[in-house]
């Protein structure tokens, strides 16, 4: 399964993102195909290589959920139309909450 997000062109740099199954934490695929919760280690992929990475992610459904492409810069920075959504996924709510509110 996959989240329905805006379609990205093959040449657009993209990351593979998902949620860790046991905890629900947001995770991103690193350049070497592992998973990280650290946004400075997001891997950027294009073309067939990106499709292969997404296909590989889909086969790891025991550990992660619902992988999909998100737009990033060549360096792996969050960018594009869904910048706000993906920034919130990465950094948490934009408001202070709980006993810090």
């Amino acid at each position, binding site marked *: 399964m996959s989240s329905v997000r805006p379609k990205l062109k093959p040449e657009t740099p993209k990351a593979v993102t998902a949620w860790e199954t046991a*905890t*629900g934490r947001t995770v991103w695929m690193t350049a070497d195909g592992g998973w990280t919760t650290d946004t400075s280690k997001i891997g950027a992929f294009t073309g067939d290589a990106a499709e292969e990475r997404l296909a590989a992610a889909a086969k790891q459904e025991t550990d992660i*959920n619902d992988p999909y492409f998100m737009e990033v810069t060549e360096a792996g920075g969050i960018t594009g139309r869904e910048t706000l959504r993906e920034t919130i996924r990465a950094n948490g709510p934009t*408001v202070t909450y*709980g006993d810090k509110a």
Partner: protein
Amino acid sequence: MYRYDEFDAQIVKERVAQFRGQVERRLSGELLEDEFKPLRLQNGVYLQLHAYMLRVAIPYGQLNARQMRMLARIAREYDRNYGHFTTRQNIQFNWVALKDIPDVLALLAEVEMHAIQTSGNCIRNTTSDHYAGAARDEIMDPRPWCEIIRQWSTFHPEFAFLPRKFKIAVTGAEHDRAAIRVHDIGLHMRERDGVRGFEVHVGGGQGRTPHVAALVNDFVPEDRLLDYLEAIMRVYNLHGRRDNKYKARIKILVNELGPEEFTRQVEVEFAAQRPHEKIDLPQAEIERIHAYFAPPELATKPETSDAFEAAKANDKAFARWARINLHPHVTPGYTSVTVSLKPIGGLAGDATDAQMEIIANLAETYGQDDIRVSHAQNVILAHVALDDLPALYAELDAAGLATPNESLITDLIVCPGLDYCNLANARSIPVGQAVQQVFADPDYQEDIGRLHINISGCINACGHHHVGHIGILGVDKKGEEFYQITFGGRADEKAAIGDIAGPGLKSEDVPGALKRVVDRYRELRSGKDELFIDTLGRLGHDPFKEALYAAD
């Protein structure tokens, strides 16, 4: 309140064990997400933007102190020290790990709570008037019938896979505080010739295709209610659309058939029920359920309280809170108290674990161990003696729970929006906070009077924007948040869907624009007694649209 019998307890316990096994199989890889998703949703577990979210049912919004303390404990031990009370009188935890959820459900079961039917295409938690069993204007207490509907609908095999989710609300007061006309079925309790019964409204709802429900029967006697509900559900189950998610709610069916034809089909189904299919309850069973909701034994008191009057005279802040956050109680010398979860600049509907503990303590000390959650995302202590209000207020105030704004302009209904929700297009919470800030002055708020602003971060309308006197809908335009404003919605017995005023506004322009609208209302109202919604009805929307889009 209702207490579980051995069957209820067993059902919930077995469900926890079943889900524990399902989670284990998901984590081991035996179940993949496509297989697991319907199972987790049947147990209230969503996957949101940054974590799983667990929605816990609070049947018709009623809790006792022990249950509230358990919610506090779950917030503390399994979440980030808070929970979010929702527009369906439930509570959501935003950061619970899947691996821990079976343990959380086991804790909930200890206090007769669960997350069953808080998601999926089934009959959801039945909602009701948050002043039920306490309000002076109430004709009949709706809670026993909410409980009967809960028992009838829980795990009902015929209605486990409906075309879409299904929401029922019941009210027993003339003034509808439960928004019944924007539910799939809305039941308004009536009495006719000494017989109790229900006015039945069907096909209301919000979302992308909002409708006010149609009246399909002006009186169904209470002993026929469940059969009548079954007839409605069968017509829906047979003819509701399963080919298109966006046309699957019963409101679409009622609208496409027309209310007359829909009603005719329900009546045919109702008449065709064979004797062995009838599930009408014996009177003894109806009375047995009613007995759980007997009014609390309140000490006899005079209509007025010297202590209360003296405190009002001596403390302006207390007097303001008492003017705004109290609701007339059926018993002389008592009142219902709204504990506001809408502090200025806060997060609507959120309560910390510490606040939940305090509410639980106060409910035991002053409130007959009876706590309610309102669809407006506040908490209510339903039965409080006027004599106790000064002490109660002092403790609420110290905990940040005494904001005097019940039904005023800063008492906004706000969905979690893009800060939490995987479906949202735009943020709701920061916009709500900014709107609160421009109306923060308590004198200004009181001068404006009752005015409901509701915000949703997407068209699914969890923030009830369609029925806000002023509605705000967040939309995404090429990656930028915009906010459409609607005027004229209302959720009460005169329910109406608001009209879109015009082009969407940038988030930073919303507070100022709404201030212009409200100030125009203050200029145009016939007097201080004329509410915004009534001025709007008298003059039409044009003066307010002009104000909304006027340059500063």
